[in-house]
């Protein structure tokens, strides 16, 4: 790995590991393995979306045209920038710049929160426009039954992604508060690296979800 660390940056070796290198490697490989499972979890939804698009192209087009493209697009931008600030946090932590690390983490959490707020507003709008067939209320496209499936899938997918993002922001805030402690980077720098993988991954999932739901066949 190219991630050379500044002096005094590293980790406190816990008992089951032989040395810091082994522990760093294990932590990062563990997160990668977890992300593989996450990818396959979402892959189930991607498959269902593909099946629906093949089976009912007209109905899917109808449903897609009712989604809020510009909110989705803005949110895509927000998440990409948040990945940038997260990379900043990781790079700063490697260089031992503790304050910069924490500020970058705050910025990342703020952008994540912005995404969630925009998403909540979008969901609210969807409900007002009767685009939530799973709620027991009138449905805008009731004349086209198969569009129900895609609209519901939109809710499940963005809901699951939102859940991951909320979890991410929560963990990030805890980490950021911990990272203010004296000497944090000399003991737990790896936690920031490992969390960074997760954060980039949520970003990546959204980059697949956005075209899958909002863009194709718009």
């Amino acid at each position, binding site marked *: 790995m190219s991630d050379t660390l500044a002096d005094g940056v590293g980790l406190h070796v816990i*008992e*089951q*590991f*032989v040395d810091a290198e*082994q522990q760093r*490697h*294990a932590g990062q*490989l*563990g997160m990668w*393995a*977890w992300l*593989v*499972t*996450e*990818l*396959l*979890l*979402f*892959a*189930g*939804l991607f*498959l*269902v979306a593909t*099946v629906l698009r093949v*089976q*009912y192209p007209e*109905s899917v087009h109808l449903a897609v045209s009712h989604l809020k493209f510009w909110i989705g697009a803005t949110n895509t931008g927000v998440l990409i920038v948040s990945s940038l600030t997260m990379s900043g946090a990781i790079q700063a932590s490697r260089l031992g710049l503790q304050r910069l690390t924490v500020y970058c983490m705050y910025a990342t959490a703020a952008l994540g929160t912005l995404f969630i707020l925009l998403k909540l507003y979008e969901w609210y709008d969807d409900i007002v426009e009767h685009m939530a*067939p*799973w*709620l027991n209320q009138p449905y805008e496209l009731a004349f086209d*039954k*198969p569009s*129900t*499936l895609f609209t*519901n*899938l939109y*809710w*499940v997918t963005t809901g699951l992604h939102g859940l991951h993002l909320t979890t991410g922001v929560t963990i990030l805030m805890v980490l950021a508060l911990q990272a203010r402690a004296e000497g944090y980077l000399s003991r737990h720098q790896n936690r920031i690296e490992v969390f960074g993988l997760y954060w980039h991954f949520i970003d990546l999932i959204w980059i697949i979800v956005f075209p899958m739901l909002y863009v194709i066949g718009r």
Partner: protein
Amino acid sequence: MTYAAQRDAHVPHATIDAPKDYLHITHTVKSWLLSTDHKRIGILYLISITGFFFIGAVAAGLLRLSLVVPDGSIFTNDTYNKLFTIHGVVMVWFFLIPSIPATFGNFLLPIMIGAKDLAFPRLNTTSWYVFMTGALFAMLSVLFGGIDTGWTFYAPLSTAFSNTYVSLALVGVIIVGFSSILTGLNFIVTVHTMRAPGMTWFRMPIFVWTMYAVSMIFLLATPVITMALILLVMERTFKIGVFDPALGGDPVLFEHLFWFYSHPAVYIMVLPGMGVISEIVPAFARKRLFGYKFVAYASIGLATITFFVWGHHMFVNGQSDYASVTFSFLSFAVAVPSAVKVYNWTATIHKGTLVLDTPMLYAMGYIGLFVIGGLTGLFLATLAIDEHVHDTYFVVAHFHYIMVGGTVLAFLGGLHYWWPKFTGRMYNEAWGRVSAVLMFIGFNVTFFPQFILGYLGMPRRYHVYPAEFQLMNIMSSAGATILAFAYVFPFVYLLYSLWFGKKAPDNPWDAKGLEWMTTSPPPLHNFIKPPVVDFEAYDYEAKVPEA
């Protein structure tokens, strides 16, 4: 509560081993429930899955009782449906899938590669709590009155028609999936990063290879069924329609997603058994495992091919002929790595110095039953024959030969083989041999007639059947009685050995491998001195140079 705590209360300290081993380092219940020691977590899993095994076994016993008479007069149809669902759900998700990986895998994997613990010990503890939480949900659904969908939860039966506690059971199964994922993740990271100096990939015991292969399946397959079952719960709760034909949804899509996990899950159950047999056979034939690298690659091969055969569960549900032919061909391909393993075990036995102790008797039973189960699998992979025997007792017999004849025999064989290591005690060898033979006989009497029944056309999941099938059914139920004894005996004499068994030496079988180089039971961090590996796996013929 725990074996250790119970055992300790009865045996004076002076007569038991040095108080440094993992069982004696602390004694409180809390020290077990909050333990991050992989060995204690393995034991916690062992106790839990033994409990679930007996729940599933009682359900099976009631099923066999019901099938003694052809008119279905013993239970109502609903009760029968609930019984076979409980049997399937509990045995598949709460016994077979965690059986060998979560117990022996947890206990042995770090020891076999010379590590102090798994890479993430706290995650390991968490996985047990996740498992028990999932089990709680599933058991609640049983207590509230049971579920009647079969273990496969096929839509639209599970989404639109069943009015039992399906969602509750589904949540249980979803949660249990996460415990598998966490265990698999832990194993993969441990194998990659924590091998002792000198422990190269091709010095690892085959058991570790199979654990690695299984972990891959855990990581790649489990999330897909998690998603499928989440969609199923959503379907029941919010009518989202993905699998509901009334809204344009596709129930066959559920079968695809379900079998994309559940076929690989067969290898989650079978591969660890193969790993156990690959340890036992060389130890009792006193020979190096024949074709070590082939067996290792065959494990990875099985774990790979298994992802491309799920359609063979769906030959008669309307999928295209081209898909069926492809899946049929790929299913035949599974036979190749399976046969590689069987031939290598038999070649290991060939001209070996056989010692027919209990673990070896189980292992030889395993090889025989696995061959029958595997060959009948080829029948089922053949499209024309599958048309005839699909959803009959032929299928039931086939997968029981693999799951029980394979996995359960391997589980019991492994339990006897490593029991001295787990507990520091020897069991009664005579009772062990009797149980192993009884198991083989009882199993065949129970399940062989089912091949014939299925071939003659008796469908699965019905308890009313034509009177001419009664004789075979009575034979099968009688066999189940023998089988019950073969399960109860080990339970009794193994428990008995905890208090009254002879103290086990460190290496009672004179076997090779790092687990036999530490004490019985091992100390907290497995080895008194960190091991350095300068020998090959299965080094039974050390004096004779390898050809």
